[in-house]
Structures are given as C-alpha cells and as structure tokens.
C-alpha cells in the first residue's frame, strides 16, 4: 500500500470492521454489554467477549439466550442508569422489534450496531438494508456508515446524541462488506473519547434508584400517550440540529475532514445533471465510479432517522435527475429511501426521480451497474421501480 493520503489519520491500523467497532465500543466504556450471536454481527460481540475475558474491558458481559432477551437486558441496565451496548443483524433485529419500540418509548439512550443483512425467507446471510428499514418507525436514531472509519465515528456520534436526547440509536454497517473486510482505520483513544463523550449524565428521578424511587413504564391513558408520542417526534426534529452540531464537534476533536455534516454528505459535480442517492458502503462504489463523470453527484444519506428532508432538498437544489439506489424494498410500495426522498422534495415538480433496487441479499453492485444507471438517467426514465442485476 502507498503512503497515507491526506484524508488518513495518524495511528491508523489495518483492522477488520468488526474489530474496529469492538475496539471503539470498548473505549467508549459501556457498563453493560449483552448480545446474541448472528452472522454477520458475530465478530463484534466475540471481540467484546474476548476483551472481557482478557481483562481489557470494564463492562459486564451478559450472555443472553435470544436477541429478545439481549435487548431486554440492555433495557434494564440502561433504566438502572448504565451506559450499554448491543449488536445484532437481520432476524435478530426483527426478534427484538417489540423491545426496540419499548426502549424508545422509555427514552433510554441505548446504542446498538446493526450489521445489516437480508431477511428470511428465503434465508440469506448477506447484506442488504431490509432489517434496518423494518424498524424505521421504532423511534431509534439510525446512522449508516460507508466505511470502517465512518462506522467508528458514528458510534461516538450515536452515544453523544442518544445520551443528549434520551433516544436510542442504531448504527448500521453493511454486513460482511464492512464487518468482515480489512481497511486502514484509526481507533480513537479513551482520553479523547472522554473529552467528546463524558460518562452518561444521570438526573435524579429519571432512572431506577433506591434513593429516589421512580415508576417507569406505567399505564397511560390516550391523552398522556399522545403526549409521549408528540415529545418523541419533537425530539427527533430537534436532533437534526444536534447531530449536525455534534458531528462538527466530533470533527474538531478527532481532527478529520469530509464534506459531510452528519446528516448527509455530498460529493462529485458542482453543478450536477444527475444526483445519485444512497446509504452505506455503496457510496464507496459510487464514488469510484463518479471519478469518470463531470456532471454527476452523489448524495450519501448518513442519518436516516431523523430523516434529513431539508438537507436533501438543499443538496438537490436545481438538479432535475435523481436516482435513489437502495438495498431494501417494501413490496407493493417502493424502496423506503426513495419514498421518503420523494416526499421530501414534493413540490419540486420538475424533478425526475427514479428508484433502483440493488444489492438485495448480498447481490453484487459493480461500477458497471452504476455506469448503466447513469446512462439510463440521461435518457427517459419510466418512474417504475427498477431492479438492478
């Protein structure tokens, strides 16, 4: 490998994505970790178990007998005031669904990694975003990482925003593509992390504490229930600005630069004729492809929840050809990212927006495919959902 380019960091090592995440999580210092193994999340939780076994970790590692239990265990620990961590994928995330809603309703700042994987049936262990999209309405912040380094930083950002807003956060990393690949990555050290992310602040009367007894998870009448939902929605709106602010702060403290603002990241042509929109590691492939194009841009969505509608509108500006390329589909409807993007730009009637479904169940997405999409976008598009293969 050649010398480091200017975007690279000091102290970089070549690490597996899962290892990079595990090291970062350990440095963040959770007090309780609980998870249940599922490919492709396994390496992360095995690494954490190893750190614990070797005396390199200070957390309790609670072995769970299912994802449902793991999510409930971190729920209990978080309600008792602990900083907690879990990780899962696919079937595991769906098994947790009931608990995920419960966690957000209780306003617990739990952070979890989702090593994104397709959902059965048919059973398939490879990457797509069906799992994360299935819980898009569960009241969790959702971040999507392009590469190892972004995954590392998003975990810091996730804890920061989660604990500030009392909202749980899911950090999505593409299964295998990120979790099982090796890349140069810098792991933030504990002292710098402490500066960005001090220990979880606990307000008396907000957690389970024998000196200050509270009742959590009581029975709510329609009016009171409605109020809790309104609160969550408002806090999701507020968190748009918080994410931007804390991402800026993150860049300052950890000294890195990119075009992103924590919500979205635009790259490519200054005055694009076509903008491609995507999430996660696919952005890497698209960036490579776009080196050959002077009039195409990429808008990478790094925060899916809250959905950065205004940022997308701003980024799209006067561009009239938009292709949303995504790894999930709601049968009978469309790709979730496409649908939300379309809603965000509603009123911009001149815009032509096309949905491409790609990479389902780990289907390869090559530069050639991206080139083909760009070519199609130059001609007349049909507005029908297109499956890329």
């Amino acid at each position, binding site marked *: 490998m050649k010398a480091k380019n200017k975007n690279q960091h000091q102290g970089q090592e070549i690490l597996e994505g899962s290892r990079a995440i595990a090291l970062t999580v350990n440095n963040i210092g959770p007090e309780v970790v609980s998870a249940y193994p599922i490919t492709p999340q396994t390496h992360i939780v095995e690494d954490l178990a190893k750190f614990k076994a070797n005396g390199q970790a200070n957390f309790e590692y609670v072995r769970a007998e299912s994802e*449902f239990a793991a999510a*409930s265990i971190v729920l209990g620990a978080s309600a008792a005031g602990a900083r907690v961590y879990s990780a899962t994928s696919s079937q595991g995330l769906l098994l947790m669904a009931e608990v995920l809603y419960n966690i957000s309703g209780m306003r617990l700042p739990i952070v979890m990694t989702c090593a994104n994987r397709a959902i059965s049936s048919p059973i398939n262990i490879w990457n797509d975003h069906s799992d994360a999209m299935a819980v898009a309405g569960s009241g969790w912040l959702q971040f999507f990482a392009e590469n190892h380094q972004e995954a590392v930083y998003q975990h810091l950002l996730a804890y920061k925003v989660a604990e500030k807003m009392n909202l749980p956060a899911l950090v999505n990393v593409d299964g295998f593509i990120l979790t099982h690949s090796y890349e140069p990555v810098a792991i933030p050290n504990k002292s710098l992390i402490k500066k960005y992310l001090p220990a979880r602040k606990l307000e008396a009367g907000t957690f389970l504490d024998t000196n200050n007894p*509270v009742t959590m998870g*009581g029975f709510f009448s329609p009016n009171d229930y409605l109020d809790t939902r309104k609160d969550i929605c408002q806090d999701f709106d507020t968190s748009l600005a918080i994410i931007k602010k804390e991402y800026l702060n993150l860049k300052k403290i950890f000294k890195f630069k990119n075009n992103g603002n924590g919500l979205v990241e635009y790259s490519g042509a200054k005055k694009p004729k076509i903008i491609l929109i995507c999430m996660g590691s696919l952005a890497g492939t698209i960036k490579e492809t776009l080196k050959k194009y002077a009039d195409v841009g990429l808008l990478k969505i790094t925060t899916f929840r809250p959905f950065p509608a205004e940022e997308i509108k701003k980024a799209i500006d006067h561009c009239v050809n938009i292709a949303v390329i995504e790894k999930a589909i709601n049968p009978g409807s469309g790709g979730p990212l496409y649908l939300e993007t379309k809603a965000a730009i509603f009123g911009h009637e001149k815009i032509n927006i096309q949905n491409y479904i790609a990479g389902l169940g780990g289907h390869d997405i090559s530069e050639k495919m991206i080139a083909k999409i760009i070519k199609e976008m130059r001609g007349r598009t049909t507005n029908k959902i297109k499956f890329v293969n």
Partner: protein
Amino acid sequence: MQNKKTQEYKKLAPGHNACSGCGQLSAVHAVMRGLTKDTIIANATGCLEVTTTAYPQTSWGLPWIHSLFENASSVASGIQAALKNRGDNNTKVLVQAGDGGTFDIGLGLVSGMWERGENILYICYDTESYSNTGIQASGSTPYGASTTTTPSGAQSIGSNQVKKDMLAIALAHGLKYVAQSAAGFPDDITNKVKKALATPGPSYIQILSPCVPGWGIGYDEAAMMGKLAVKTGLYPLLEYTDGKLSASSINANFKAEPVNSYLKAQSRFKHLGEAEINHIQMLAADNIKKYQI
C-alpha cells in the same frame, strides 16, 4: 417519625385499581413486607402492572419498572448487571409476573435468567389464567377449569390440559430456593420472601392468587380459596432448599379436605361432573404423595 407500618405500606400504597378482594394484590402486600427499601422491581405486563400504575399515579414506593409482558426476567438481569458494574452488592432485584408471563410467553427468558445464576428473586402470582385480558387459559390453568379460551360446553370439560409443573422447571435449573405459597397465608409468603432474599443466587416463589372474576368467587373469598387450595392438597405450601423438599403443608398435621369443597365454591369448576371431580381428587392424592414431608 414514620413508624414501621407506614414504611411498609409505602412500598405498595393503597388506592390501586385492582378488583376489590383481588387475591393477587393481597399476596403482593405480603411480599412487600418481606422486602427492604433497597429493592428494585421489574414487573411484567398483567393485572398487577395495569392496576397499580395508571399514569400520572403510581402505587409503588420502590423503584419499579415495567417493560413488556414476557421480558421482566431479562430486564431484571440488566438491572442486576448495572448494579454489579458499579459495585452495588446491597440492592436486591425482584421480578413480579403472572402465570402467563412466567409459564407461557416468558418461559424462555425466565430460563435464561436462571441459567445466568444472578441473585434475583422471581415471584409468580398464579391466578391460573390470563386475568388481565379476560381470563383466557394459560399453561397454569388447572384441569377442568372453564376459561374464556377453554370454555366448558356440551363437548368441553373446560381445560383438558394439566397444569405445568413450574416448580420442577425451577428446580431443574438448580435454584437453591424454590417455594410455593398461597394468598390467605400472608406470614408464610413474607417468611418465604425473606428466606429467598437471604439465599444467594436466583430463587423462585409461586403464589396462588385467587382471582375474583376469573374464578367466579366473592370479593371476600380470595383468602378462603387460597386456604382451601392448600387444605385439599391441590396447592400445598412448599419449600425446597438446595433442591430438596424442606417444608410442606402436607406434613404430620395434614388432614385432606375433599376437593369438592374447593371446586364447588368457584364458578370456573361448576360445570364439572362426577368423573372430572374424581379425576381432580386423584390429582390431589398424587400431590399428597409427592409433597409429603
């Protein structure tokens, strides 16, 4: 200065929304007497949760959390882990759940908690049905009971399943303290709670909790029904220490009352004919053999 009694009542204040004469709530009061204020409670969904936490009010004077129907045990494990990590060995963790949350939907999670060997006391208030949702059958519903999902009828004797042996399941996990009690025996309940808390590791107490509408009994009959269940041998007071039966109401003083007196007093059994009643008498006889001390 608060006297002792006031402090006790503060753990569970009166004024909840349970049916008058609820056997479960009377059992809860007896459990509370066995606790200190250094206790955190994880509660499953069910009558107890619904009737004590109508927001913005709460009956609980102890830190208390309800998450879901089936996961109170895992939530308790998480609480325990958080306490352990901050070096708190003093605070006790208690789970409260119904028979539905314990025998049925939460069983896997209960098993997981017991495997982990954590110092958590699990109390199951056994109403022998899903009381909260309208008396549907659970794995704890006894043979012959009419419930809303096992109604008696021209071709039905009510539930034709046997009650799951949850104590045996607890014992199979190697629990050092496993006990059974019944509403109507408040001192027995309180003592068992104290003993369980004094035993390191997980422990399990199952308390028969007569349910007024579910069993079709009067609002002043729950305690009596608990007593009859014990006297007939259908629901003996039991205690297992280190896996061995160490106390039982089926002892030298035990004189079995016929099950009829128990069955006839409840509308859930009123349809039963002689054959079924004889069968239930046989179940009581089996118990009397099995739990004799």
